[in-house]
């Protein structure tokens, strides 16, 4: 059973979604007003999202290829460094 107190808190927090400027819910959305700033926010978001995935993905892909080389399933693509 939801108490009146919880219902009230839920209504207030939900209504704040309708007035995001008042709630200052997203600093990123309102601080970049010019087009240049918007592009910068977008580019840096893409960079910070994509870079770790790209780096970790590259290492995993290289390790899989190297494992195949060691097993002899694949022709050597990199010098041995053991």
């Amino acid at each position, binding site marked *: 059973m939801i108490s009146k107190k919880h219902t009230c808190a839920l209504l207030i927090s939900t209504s704040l979604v309708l007035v995001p400027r008042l709630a200052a819910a997203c600093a990123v959305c309102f*601080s*970049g007003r*010019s087009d*240049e*700033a918007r*592009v*910068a*926010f977008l*580019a*840096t978001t893409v*960079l*910070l999202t994509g*870079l*770790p995935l790209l*780096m*970790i993905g590259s*290492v995993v892909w290289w*390790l899989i290829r*190297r*494992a195949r080389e*060691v097993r002899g399933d694949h022709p050597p693509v990199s*010098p*041995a*460094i*053991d």
Partner: protein
Amino acid sequence: MTPRSAAMLRVISDPRPRPILPNAVLGTLIFVIAEMMMFAGLISALSIVKAGAVGWPPPGQPRLPVEATAFNTAVLLTSGVLLFVANRDYARDRKLARSPLFWAIGLGAFFVVFQGYEWVLLIRQGLTLASSNHGSFFYLIVGMHALHAIAGLTVLASAGFKLSKGLLKPSTFAATQVFWYFVVGLWPVLYYLVYL
């Protein structure tokens, strides 16, 4: 059975598979990935502040030495190429790797010293950490790279010392190269974003 032949038999009959990647190289790769994310964060912050600024560099602040740093960038890139040559020579004959490795260390050291000299000139001209956002980002980003370059030079010097004594392991040399290529490869990106 003598202890020597027993040891040889243990090596021959070792059922463990050959490692895919030496621990030193894997550890360095993970460290480099973490450091790349730190620099990505700094670059992102710089990009957003630059985009929001009225003019960049801010009026009244000294201009950065673009041409001199371009020369210094070429020096650092040459150091990376020489390390690559050292690795190639190391695979053929370890003694051949000494000369390009020491040249790579020398050029890397020149890069750091030249950067320090530029900093002294810029501080005299009034660009400090507190003078503007431009100064703060410049010293933070370039300074972090310089710290990495000094760390890279230290491990390169250690590798050079071990090489001269005939004690350098291939895995240690490979890990050293991974770190130095990171330092060398990152710099042109920073030069483009900070200086140009």
